[in-house]
C-alpha cells in the first residue's frame, strides 16, 4: 500500500508524560493531518538516550526525541533559554523558545544534518530536600543535590550547592539511601521519579532555577522522501504547534504533581528576597558567559534573550 511508516525510537518509559502526552498525541495528529498516509511506529530504544541525535541523523531511526544537555557541546545556543528566571510555566517559554530559535539560533546550524520538528523547555525547576526547609541563603551552602551537567551543574556550583552527578536510573537509590540531601527537578519529575514518598520540602523559585530543553528530530532523507503535501502536513503539527502541545503537557503534569505533593503534605517555601537576589546575580553571570560563548558563533545572545523574554510576554498576554 502507499502508507509510509516512520520509526520513532523511544527511550522513555511509556508512563512518562513526554511519551504519553506529547509524542503519542503528536504522532496521532501526524496521521490525521496526512489522512493516514504517514503513520508513526514507536520502537523500543535503538540506542542510549544520548545517542539519539546520531541515530536519527544516520537513519537508524526516522524520528526521536532527546535532550540538548546530553550532548551539550553540540548545542551551545540552547543553554540561553535554560537560564534562571524568564517564566513560571512551560507553555509560554516553549513557544517563545521556538520563535527565538527561528529568528536567532537557527543560523548556528546545530540541526543542519537533520530535520528539526520541535523544541520545548520543561517547567521551572526547584530545590527538593528531605526534612530540611531552605529558609535562608546559607541553607543552600554545602547541600548535596543530585544534578546533571550543563546549567544544572553551573547554577548549583555558583550557589555553593554540591552537585552529585548521577545517571537518571540511579536517582531514586541515591535519594532513598540518603547519599544526597535532595534533587534539583521540575515539579513533575519528583513524582515521575517516584521520589514523592522520600522527600518533604520544596524551595520554589519564581521563574525557576533552570529549565531543561528537549528536541524532536527527523532524518533529513526520510523527510525529503515524503510528498510535498505530507511534508506540509507534518510541519503544520510540528514547530510552534509542537511547542504548544509540549508546553501544555508539561504544565498539566506539573499541576498534577503539585496536587499530589500537596496532598502528601509537602512544604513549599518560596525563596527569600535574599536567595532571589543571589539567583539573579549568578544567573546574570552565567548569562554573560553564555553571550560571550555564542558570540563566536555569530549569534547575538543578548538580542536572542530579549526576544525570548518578549515572546514569553506575548504568549502569556494572549492566553
Amino acid at each position, binding site marked *: 500500500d502507499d502508507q509510509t511508516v516512520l520509526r520513532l525510537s523511544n527511550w522513555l518509559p511509556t508512563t512518562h508524560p513526554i511519551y504519553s502526552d506529547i509524542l503519542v498525541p503528536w504522532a496521532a495528529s501526524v496521521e490525521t493531518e496526512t489522512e493516514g498516509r504517514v503513520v508513526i511506529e514507536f520502537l523500543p530504544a*535503538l*540506542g*542510549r538516550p544520548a545517542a539519539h541525535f546520531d541515530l536519527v541523523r*544516520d*537513519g*537508524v531511526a526516522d524520528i526521536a526525541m532527546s535532550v540538548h544537555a546530553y550532548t551539550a557541546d553540540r548545542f551551545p545556543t540552547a543553554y540561553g533559554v535554560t537560564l534562571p528566571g524568564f517564566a513560571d510555566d512551560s507553555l509560554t517559554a516553549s513557544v517563545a523558545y521556538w520563535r527565538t530559535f527561528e529568528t536567532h539560533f537557527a543560523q548556528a546550524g546545530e540541526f543542519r544534518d537533520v530535520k528539526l520538528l520541535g523544541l520545548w523547555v520543561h517547567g521551572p525547576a526547584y530545590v527538593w530536600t528531605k526534612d530540611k526547609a531552605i529558609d535562608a541563603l546559607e541553607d543552600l551552602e554545602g547541600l548535596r543535590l543530585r544534578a546533571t551537567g550543563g546549567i544544572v551543574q553551573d547554577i548549583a556550583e555558583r550557589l555553593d550547592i554540591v552537585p552529585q552527578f548521577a545517571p537518571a536510573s*540511579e536517582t531514586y*537509590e541515591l535519594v532513598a*539511601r540518603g*547519599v544526597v540531601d535532595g534533587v534539583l527537578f521540575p515539579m513533575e519529575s519528583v513524582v515521575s521519579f517516584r521520589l514523592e514518598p522520600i522527600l518533604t520540602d520544596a524551595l520554589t523559585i519564581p521563574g525557576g532555577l533552570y529549565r531543561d530543553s528537549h528536541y524532536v528530530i527527523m532524518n533529513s532523507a526520510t523527510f525529503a522522501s515524503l510528498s510535498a503535501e505530507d511534508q506540509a502536513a507534518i510541519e503544520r503539527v510540528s514547530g510552534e504547534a509542537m511547542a504548544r502541545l509540549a508546553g501544555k503537557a508539561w504544565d498539566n503534569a506539573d499541576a498534577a504533581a503539585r496536587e499530589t505533593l500537596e496532598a502528601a503534605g509537602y512544604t513549599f517555601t518560596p525563596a527569600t528576597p535574599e536567595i532571589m537576589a543571589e539567583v539573579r546575580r549568578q544567573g546574570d553571570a552565567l548569562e554573560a558567559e553564555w553571550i560571550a560563548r555564542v558570540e563566536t558563533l555569530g549569534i547575538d545572545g543578548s538580542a536572542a534573550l530579549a526576544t525570548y523574554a518578549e515572546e514569553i510576554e506575548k504568549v502569556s498576554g494572549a492566553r
Partner: protein
Amino acid sequence: MSAALVGLACILGLAVLGVPIAFAMMLVGFIGFATVTDWYPAMAMVGQLAYDTSLTYSLSVLPLFILMGNFITRAGLSDDLYRAAYAFVGHLRGGLALSTLISCGGFSAVSGSSLATAATISRVAMPSMRRFGYADTLATGSIAAGGTLGILIPPSVVLVLYGIMTNNDIGQLFIAGIVPGLLGLLLYCLTVQVIAFANPEAGPPGDRSDWRERLAVLRRTWGILALFTLVIGGIYGGLFTPTEAAGVGAASALLLALARGGLSLRDVAGILLESARTTAMIFAVLIGAFMFANFINVAGLMRDLQTVIAALDVGPLTVLAGILVCYLLLGMVLESMSMLLLTIPIFYPLAMAAGFDPIWFGIVVVVVIEISLITPPIGMNVFVLRATLSDVATTTVFRGVLPFVGADILRLLLLLAAPWLVLT
C-alpha cells in the same frame, strides 16, 4: 515475524560452524538491520552500539561481581564451606552429596556465576565423595546441579543481564531470586535423599561430627556469611546502591583473600586479568545481542506477535507454556547466557503482552536457564566437571543430573502454580 526466525536460524547455523555466538549475533544483527532499513543506517547502528554499550555505569556490576567471586574462590573459602556442611549433614545417608549441595548454595550467595560455583565446589567435594565410594553419577550430578544455584541466589550475572535488557530493577530481581533459589536447594536435597534410600550403595553416609567440631568449622565460614550480609544487607539497609554493592563486595573479598594469606600482588593481577577477560566475553555477547535486538525491533516483530496472538486467540498460560518449551529446547543446544540475550528481545515483549509480571517472568526464565546448564548435549556445568575430572564419561554426568532435572521441572511447576513464591 519470519525475518526474526530466519535471523535466529542464521545465528544458530553460524554458531554450529564454530563462529563465537557473540560475533554471529553481530553479523546477523547488522545484515538483518540493513535489509530492513539500508546499509548506511546499519553501519551507523553497529558503530553506535559498539561504542555505547560498554560506556554504561550500571553495567559495572558485571566485572565487579565476577571479581568478587574470583577473589572468594582464591581465598579457599569453598573448602571451609564444604567442611561445615559436612560436619552437619555428612553422617546422613547421601550425606556427602547433601554437603555438596549445601556448600554450592552457600557459595552461590557470593558468586554470580553457575560455572564458577560448580568448578569451585567440585575441587573439594569430588575427592571426598570418591573416598567414601559414591557412585560417579550421584557425585557429579549433585555438583553439576548444585552449581546451577549460582545464578538464582543473588548476586547473579544472568539476573543483571535480564535487568539491563528489560529495564527492570536489579535489586528487586535479586530479592525475588532468594526464595526460588532456596526452594531449588531443598528439592535437590530431597532428590538426593530419594536416590540414597532407593540405592544405599550410591551414597553411603560419612563420619558423624560432634557439636564442638561443628561449631569450630562453622566459625570458619564467617567470611562468606559476612560478605553476603554486607552485599545484600548493604543494599537493603540503605548503605549503598546495588551497583555500588558490587564494588564494596569485590573490595571486601580482596581484603578477605589477603587476610587469609598466600596471595601475592602477582596473584591479584592474575585474578584482575581473568575477571577482565570474562567481562570482555560477556560484553561481546551483550553488544551482539543489542544489535540483534535492534534488527528484531525494526523488523516489527512486536507488532506481528501481537497480531498473531490475537489471531490465535490463546490464553496467557498457553503463551507462557510455549515460551518455556522453546527455552527448554533451545537450552539443550545453546549456552545459557547467550540464550538469554538472544531470546529476550523476542520472548519478553510476548510475556508482557500476555500480562505477566516482569520480575516473576525473569525468575522463571532463570529457572529454565538453570535447567539448560545441565541438559545434554550442551550443558556448560557438565562440561566444567568433565574438564576437572578426566576419568568420568560425559554420559555418566548427564545420567547423574537427570533426577535433578526432574527436581527443577517440579520447581518450575511450583513457581507457576504459586507465583507468590517469587517476592515481587
